């Protein structure tokens, strides 16, 4: 059996595990949809009122029945109804996912566009002042939390220049690409620069390792120009760890970037899940986490397949 097929067979098991875990975890946390809606005022409810609301939120059955009802729906592609939005969970997720996907792609592009050239530059100028500068910048970039970068950007732009992209009402890229990019660029830079720092460090050290390899020395001794050795012979191999790193990071980003979404008021998946947890919208929490887990697995599988494409020595054959 080929590797990708074996990986695909594990999917349902992981999904079942995630389902059970999230289902139980969100219910173990004290408070429910009624306390989320009414706060301390829920203490004013009569037993009969409480019963009516419990039934309304579908909390009147025991956990096993609740889980079975929900899971049977999931198997048929129905993730249930979100109590906060009053819409099917799948609809809510699909409304918020494009933004998250776009943000992930944009910040990944920014990170790679800065990170790979800077990393290679540092590696090829090892121990020179320019290398040191790149390394210090990368260290600072990686150790600064993204919300600090985000808040600083917001502060500098609004106080220093009196400008800020329109916040609050999100414009999808399909409606107005320019307005959309204006809204997305700051959050993308915020997430992208933090990740660029990691890419710099990874591509620098990978490149340094590769440059020590025999085949690189051979290529150089055959008289191939240094530039060509670096870009054609060394780079593809140096990229393998960067691909792993980027794949994992991209998977995380598809789960939403809560802090950055909060600061820039972007209605992405991260905020949706956070709000769903705070409002104890069980169906939305379960559905969204399942969706995120699924994406994460798909991205990981794609990363594994990309290895094989980048490095012909890697083959996923069964013995």
């Amino acid at each position, binding site marked *: 059996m080929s590797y990708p097929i074996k990986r695909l067979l594990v999917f349902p098991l992981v999904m079942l595990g995630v389902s059970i875990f999230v289902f139980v975890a969100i219910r173990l*946390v*004290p*408070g*429910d949809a009624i*306390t*989320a*809606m*009414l*706060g*301390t*005022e*829920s*203490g*004013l*409810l*009569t037993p*009969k*009122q*409480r019963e*009516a*609301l419990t039934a*309304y939120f579908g909390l009147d059955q025991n956990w096993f029945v609740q889980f079975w009802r929900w899971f049977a729906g999931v198997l048929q592609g129905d993730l249930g109804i979100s109590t*906060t*939005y*009053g819409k099917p969970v799948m609809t809510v997720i699909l409304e918020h996912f494009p933004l998250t996907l776009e943000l992930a792609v944009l910040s990944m592009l920014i990170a790679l566009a800065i990170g790979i050239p800077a990393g290679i530059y540092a590696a090829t100028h090892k121990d020179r002042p320019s290398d040191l500068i790149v390394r210090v910048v990368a260290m600072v970039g990686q150790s600064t939390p993204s919300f600090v970068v985000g*808040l600083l950007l*917001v*502060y500098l*732009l*609004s*106080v220093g*220049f*009196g*400008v*800020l992209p*329109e*916040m*609050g*009402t*999100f*414009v999808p890229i399909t*409606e*107005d690409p320019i307005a959309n990019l204006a809204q997305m660029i700051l959050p993308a830079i915020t997430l992208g620069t933090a990740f660029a720092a990691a890419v710099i460090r990874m591509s620098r050290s990978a490149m340094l390792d590769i440059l020590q390899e025999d085949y690189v020395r051979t290529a150089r001794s055959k008289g191939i120009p240094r530039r060509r050795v670096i870009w054609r012979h060394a780079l593809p191999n140096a990229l393998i760890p960067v691909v792993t790193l980027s794949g994992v990071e991209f998977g995380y980003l598809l789960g939403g970037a809560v802090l950055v979404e*909060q*600061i*820039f*008021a972007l*209605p992405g998946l991260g*905020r*949706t899940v956070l*709000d769903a947890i*705070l*409002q*104890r919208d069980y169906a939305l929490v379960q559905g969204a986490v399942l969706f995120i887990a699924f994406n994460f697995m798909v991205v990981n599988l794609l990363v594994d397949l990309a290895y094989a494409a980048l490095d012909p020595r890697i083959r996923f054959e069964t013995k």
Partner: protein
Amino acid sequence: MSKMISKSLTTIGLAVALGTTALSGAAMAENLKVAWSQDATGLDPHKQTAFSSIRFLELMYEPLVRLDKDAKIVPALASSWEFNDEATVLTMKLDDGAKFHDGSAVTSADVKASFERILDEEVGSAARANFTAITSIDTPDEKTVVFNLDGPNVPFLTALASVNAAVVQASAIDAGTIGTEVVGSGPFKYESWTPNSNATLVANGDWHGGEVAIDGLDISVLPDETAILAALRSKQVDFALINDPFVATLIPQASGLKLAKAPVLSYHVLQLNPSRGPLTEQKVRQAISCAVDRQDVLDTALLGEGAVSGPLTMAAYATPVDELFCYTQDLDKAKALMAEAGYADGFDMSIMAATGEPPTAASEAQVLQSQLSEIGINLTIEMKELNVYVDHWLKANFDMAVALNGGKPDPYTMYNRYWTKDGNLQHVANYIDDDLDNLMAQGREETDPAKRKEIFQSFEKHLAEVSPWVWLYTGYSYAGSQDYVDGFEPTPTGSLFGLADVSLNK
């Protein structure tokens, strides 16, 4: 989008036609761009009790009466009202011009149906507890409503001044559309709402309360209040509601921005649980009250943004704080009381606070922790997510709690849930005595305002002395806006209803 384009095209067209100079001087009606950090949690006015929901819904739905900026009861859907001498029957006349957003008149049948819905236990309205005194509702004609009560009940009128007692259409109740469709009678009509993201309301041109000067409201949810401040600075937002005093105090420092603030009825309080260990001793609770320097907590945790207060936060009833038990810190007295109770060496306890609710909760807990350590009480701070906090609180599963509780303009409506023998939340308050119970009962029945005030002042002094809780202070409600936003009056309830009077003078 196409709407936006056509709108901006019209604006450009107008500008070209009139010449920009003609426009610059005149006050142009347009949408007010509003921002807040916490969004409504639902659209059913009878069921949503969170402050973030109430301030949104009261722009669209109306109760029979409402509170003005001085917490006085003024007409809303009812233009006049009268109690009988015993305060057992309340007769209200509806405003002749009052119409729902679909053009139909607001009638006494709608009022009756609305209150029957609130009282229907199947609906699950938390406000029901305020209206169980209703025995029947008569509707002698289309514009007259008569509430028959089970006994003398002066605070009943104040309880009506809440959007949780809003009048909705009888036909919408029958159709089961309350909570999914919004047909109110207030100054703004519902257009769209995406939870935790944005909402659009349009001005109601037929509003019986007068003319609304703006075209509507574009409301954005910006979860981070420093981002709201940034949005105000860059003129993205005209008007914003602020919770965090740290952010609010920065607003007047930015050019072109102004801050409207008003003292509120809600109160910050250190809740003791008189069913727990040493707190069962009145002397220990009194020692805590004497050990706390209220002004110091206020200055440190809230930047001094507020005023030290007793249990009654409404100006009409409040006792001057220097007449209340131990409102000046007295550590010697506190230590003596601890020793008398047998706790000269102090004890260990926990204090819970909700994360970010209010934004100052953690700092308040820290200041209290350091103040109480002076008399040997060692507090462990437990920060909890709001729902977890509420769950523990409702089960009275805490030693001490930092809380910000909502206030009401009438002492009875505000406190009967805690300090009467059959109060719904007496099991959380865990302290009651005959004096508190009797004074509340007298206050409910007394019709003479001067005598009512006397009754509630006795109530307040006694409550502060037996110290089931240690009342601290009240803060402000804050609204930041651009200089060109005129006419907003903040209220003691933190209501945004004043947006109906706002105009833009750019």
